[in-house]
């Protein structure tokens, strides 16, 4: 289904859409307050952009350096060309350690590779330990936001889910009580886990270590208890030096939620005594995206979610309408690189207002890339008949001013005189869920002429 079709499903519940819209705008607002406190914020964004651009231009060498240092630190390094290989590697590590129970902290990469269903099919229990992710896991859904996975659910839905799966008491959706119950439930899982899987926010080439950021403490509760820790990362997570963390950790949480830093920024370098640590480095389409000059900066993304919180389309259509692991503006420039046909409607799910590019901490020109994808998609994928024909006619009309004036007159008359049923007919998508304004008597040209003449008098 296209983005607009899926969005119309989300739009059925108007109250929920309003709440979703306001809640995310509130997060965007917190981001603003937080970044305005930082002296030199724009310089910091430029640094974030520059460090990422440099890293991508030397990515092979940084990965080799990272691998060598990680091995020195007693970490085992694995490489996966695609999602399938990633899943097989992870499964093999779990098998070798006779693992049955896995706890996992937030990792969009493992979502992208569909790791959970793969492991479950092999009889392994996988528990997502981020509260939002646990909620969507219990609901058998996907995260709808990369930082706020359950933003599409209200507290009463969570209440019901927890009653059903965790045996909680009805509580009218009390977040304090529900979080407390989830804490008890997850503690049990942490204690029993054989293997902990985490994502990676930054991997540092010159130390061979990596950093994982959470607010809940779930990454460490998993990794510091289980005898095996597997960290999964895309190739683009590398930064050259430890000092660069100073830039990215200042940018990340402020852009994400307005916090000055996440509660936990954990730096893993060597396994603890008796523990085994693995890193899986994954391509899955990233090297291809790197080959596209117009789109390669999309690999700068540090997954803060700011472009989603600010996007007028995302806020009103919900993350699931993008039907992709990474939704929102950044998802709309990443996904077409993976499957142009399947995701051909995503670059059109934008007003091109540019707000995403304004808030992006690593200065990805998201809205220009959306525009560039549109050019490619219109050329390479068949357009709906009505749209293709209208565009053709419009093109001809705009090229001849006299014709434009004549058509304009007819439209203004029609808007004033035709019945609504005709104006808002099926062919006119602008008439969906909104009334068109009454047509003015004059065109702008006429008004301007008249004004000029009046001034002369």
């Amino acid at each position, binding site marked *: 289904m296209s983005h607009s079709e899926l969005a119309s499903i989300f739009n059925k519940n108007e109250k929920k859409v309003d709440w979703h819209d306001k809640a995310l705008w509130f997060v965007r607002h917190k981001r603003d307050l937080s970044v305005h406190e930082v002296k030199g914020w724009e310089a910091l964004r430029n640094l974030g952009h520059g460090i990422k651009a440099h890293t991508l*231009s030397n990515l092979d060498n940084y990965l080799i350096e990272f691998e060598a240092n990680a091995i020195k630190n007693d970490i085992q390094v694995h490489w996966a060309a695609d999602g399938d290989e990633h899943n097989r590697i992870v499964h093999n590590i779990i098998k070798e350690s006779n693992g049955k129970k896995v706890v996992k902290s937030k990792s969009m990469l493992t979502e992208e590779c569909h790791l959970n269903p793969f492991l479950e099919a092999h009889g392994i229990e996988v528990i997502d330990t981020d509260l*939002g992710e646990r909620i969507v896991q219990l609901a058998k859904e996907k995260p709808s936001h990369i930082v706020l996975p359950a933003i599409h659910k209200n507290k009463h839905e969570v209440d019901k889910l927890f009653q059903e799966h965790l045996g909680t008491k009805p509580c009218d959706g009390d977040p304090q009580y529900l979080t407390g119950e989830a804490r008890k439930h997850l503690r049990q899982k942490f204690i029993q886990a054989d293997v902990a899987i985490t994502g990676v926010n930054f991997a540092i080439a010159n130390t061979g270590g990596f950093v994982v950021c959470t607010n*809940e403490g779930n990454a460490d509760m998993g990794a510091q208890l289980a005898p095996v820790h597997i960290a999964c990362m895309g190739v683009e997570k590398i930064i050259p030096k430890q000092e660069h963390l100073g830039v990215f950790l200042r940018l990340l949480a402020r852009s994400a939620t307005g916090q000055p830093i996440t509660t936990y920024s954990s730096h893993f370098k060597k396994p603890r005594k008796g523990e085994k640590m693995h890193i899986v480095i994954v391509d899955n389409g990233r090297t291809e995206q790197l080959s596209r000059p117009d789109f390669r900066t999309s690999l700068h993304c540090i997954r803060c979610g700011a472009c989603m919180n600010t996007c007028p389309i995302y806020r009103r259509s919900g993350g699931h309408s993008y039907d992709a692991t990474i939704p929102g503006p950044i998802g709309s420039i990443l996904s077409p690189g993976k499957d142009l046909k399947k995701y051909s409607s995503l670059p059109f799910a934008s007003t091109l207002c540019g707000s995403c590019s304004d808030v992006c901490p690593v200065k990805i020109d998201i809205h220009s890339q959306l525009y560039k994808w549109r050019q490619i998609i219109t050329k390479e994928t068949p357009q709906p008949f009505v749209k293709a024909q209208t565009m053709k006619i419009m093109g001809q009309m705009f090229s001849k001013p006299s014709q434009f004036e004549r058509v304009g007159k007819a439209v203004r008359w029609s808007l004033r005189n035709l019945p609504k049923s005709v104006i808002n007919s099926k062919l006119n998508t602008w008439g969906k869920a909104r009334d068109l304004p009454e047509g003015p008597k004059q065109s702008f040209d006429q008004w301007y002429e008249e004004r000029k003449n009046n001034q002369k008098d």
Partner: protein
Amino acid sequence: MNSRDQILAKLKTNKPKLIDLPLIETSIFRDEGLDIIKEFIKKVEVVGGNVLEVTSNQDVINKIESTFTNQEVCYSHIKGTQGFNTISLETIQNPHDLENLDVLILESTLGVAENGSVWLSDQEIPVRVLPFITKHLAVVISKKDLVEYMHEAYSRLSGFNYGVFLAGPSKTADIEQSLVIGAQGALSITIFLKQ
């Protein structure tokens, strides 16, 4: 070719021409009038922690005992406070045995004013899971060990095997965006500032 070599070969072909690595000029971020201690206290409170000023390690213990009364399982890793401990780490076989820890006291030698975080590494945490599994966390830090920004913090860090910048108690807003303190990690954090 195995996947490693394949990925590296593709990156080599597909990457753009080498772009220079920008230098981090930390002077552009410096706010000259900043009072580091005041800013640190303010930010600890912003991230949900408490700050108390103390004169000695014994003072820390006294203040904790009056705030957290009747706690069963307690452990302190700061000097001269063994009397506070109800467990001995030597007898702990497995990090899981720390599940019921009520109060933990650690020392940090690096705090960051701009975000209220304290650095805890293997040198300060005898068992890595400690600051996460405890119900209440207390961290003692000297005022002289506070720096302004993350850039200064990283210039001081080297040679650790594991470490965490920890800012405030664990928290979540995953249920309808209502902030709840106490997710999977510590329920509270108190920073004790020493001269």
